[in-house]
């Protein structure tokens, strides 16, 4: 079952002058078609301006496609009567943690969504408990969000979305403003929600290392799925995508450092396989070539 189905979607941004005349049009999405399977962990990669965030906003029905159809959990985002239900099933976490917190107390912030859809208070309490537990913020539930670190604030933002019991969460660069610890926390929670709660994760990031454990990587370029140097779509497992080092560089992207080192060694003629992603994989691949005597 596909939770997200995009068929030939287009989206444009227009720059207007002071007389409201359109002076520039940018095609942010250009005939993008892709399906995302329920329960999967998908990473969207691409340089700034490739259309990643535009697509994320379309999934959440914050913007509507100019052409084409986008179905989220079987609902057409163009149908205004479904907008709220779409946002319940596909929640979104943004880059800046400070822009997403509204209450003075963590648990009130998490309760905002369920309160807003008019649930009875027992159910709100139950959902808030569950959501705060899911992100490991029990010890902070009565604290003020302004005493939290960036990573902790992102966890509160995720809890706020979990309280809506979504089927899918879109993470739009949630780690860009965090330090390494905070980044690790947020990523671990995303993976746990995917594994344990079967929530579909669409993770947009500029950190290649964060894509290594995804089920699937989709690279975007000029508003549609990027092509490799041989014209095949850049859509596959991390192993497939990170084997294409030259193709990624041509798209202004990089590969994880371990993958880059393995690739450099291969280029020098060392017969190791393509698409090595982790330190352990690289150590295992290099072992046969260790000198016999020390």
């Amino acid at each position, binding site marked *: 079952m596909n939770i997200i189905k995009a068929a030939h979607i287009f989206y444009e941004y227009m*720059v207007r002058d002071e007389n409201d005349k359109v002076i520039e049009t940018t095609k942010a999405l250009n005939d993008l078609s892709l399906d995302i399977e329920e329960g999967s962990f998908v990473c969207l990669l691409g*340089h*700034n*301006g490739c259309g990643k965030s535009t697509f994320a906003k379309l999934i959440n029905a914050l913007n509507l496609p100019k052409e084409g159809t986008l179905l989220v959990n079987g609902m057409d985002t163009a149908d205004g009567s479904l907008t709220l239900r779409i946002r319940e099933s596909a929640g979104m976490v943004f*880059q800046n943690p400070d822009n997403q917190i509204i209450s003075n107390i963590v648990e009130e912030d998490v309760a905002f969504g369920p309160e807003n859809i008019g649930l009875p208070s027992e159910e709100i309490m139950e959902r808030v408990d569950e959501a705060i537990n899911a992100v490991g913020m029990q010890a902070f539930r009565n604290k003020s969000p302004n005493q939290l*670190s*960036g990573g902790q604030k992102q966890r509160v933002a995720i809890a706020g979305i979990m309280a809506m019991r979504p089927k899918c969460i879109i993470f739009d*660069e949630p780690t*860009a*403003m965090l*330090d*390494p*610890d*905070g980044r690790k926390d947020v990523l671990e929670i995303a993976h746990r929600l995917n594994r344990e709660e079967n929530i579909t994760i669409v993770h947009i990031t*500029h950190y*290649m*290392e964060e894509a290594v454990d995804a089920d699937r990587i989709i690279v975007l370029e000029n508003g549609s799925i990027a092509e490799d140097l041989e014209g095949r779509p850049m859509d596959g497992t991390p192993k497939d995508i990170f084997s294409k080092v030259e193709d990624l560089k041509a798209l*202004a*992207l*990089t590969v*994880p*450092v*371990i993958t*880059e*080192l393995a690739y*450099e*060694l291969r280029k*020098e*003629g*060392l*017969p190791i396989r393509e698409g090595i992603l982790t*330190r*352990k994989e*690289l*150590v295992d691949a*290099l*072992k046969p*070539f*260790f*000198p*016999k005597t*020390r």
Partner: protein
Amino acid sequence: MSIRAEHLTHLYSPGTAFESYALKDISFEIADGSFVAVIGHTGSGKSTLIQHLNGLYRPTSGTVYYNGEDIFAEGYDLKALRTKIGLVFQYPEYQLFEEDVITDVMFGPKNMGLSDDEARARAKKALMQVGIGESLYKRSPFDLSGGQKRRVAIAGVLAMDPEVLILDEPTAGLDPRGREETLAMLEELHSERKITVILVSHSMDDVAECADMLMVLKDAELKFFDRPKEVFRHVEELESYGLAVPEITYLAHDLIKAGLDIDPTVSTVSEAKAELLKLLKW
């Protein structure tokens, strides 16, 4: 010529129940023309430290010497110091405000009392150094991409022709190309303009590539101030500070455990490649 900190201490809310150290007895000397990276966990004092170096914060005790002069001494011209020690804050693009790119970059030099023509010449040179072409001069800074905005903001500081450039996480939030370009630009400024660069960073991999000295802060204290390679020897201590060594250094340690006699301090892809090509047999 140097920046020298002596027993620099900054106490928040002294005398109250909330008293806490932001900096505790920090001493170091940064030689002219070096490229220093400052690394530390969030809240370790990095940002507080760099704001003492150009006199934005006053220490509770201790002081900073710039070229041998105590910058907190009475009568020292802090305003002039701030044109010599340029500070680029985190997310500097939020500080752009003029109607077009060139005017924004001219703001600093004009504020120093330079004429329009001089300010424009300085701005053009600075914009060239950060890779912003003339076609963007008349654009509103708010219409630029994230990476471009960041570079315009850095140009605004460069236009004051500083002797020292301090940057607080200049690559945060940029895409991979933006990160690479920003770091390459800093290395170029450092080698060509002979500017002293002080870079606050969270990325050990970036630091391994470009810094020649590394300062590690932990809970307001200076724990290491040494060449990056020497610092990276202390894996366990760094980890106990909530930091890590570069991924390549971890790999070297894994390879040693697996039985390869490789230098445990390699920290970049090119170093590891050279070492491995020497050691491996096929």
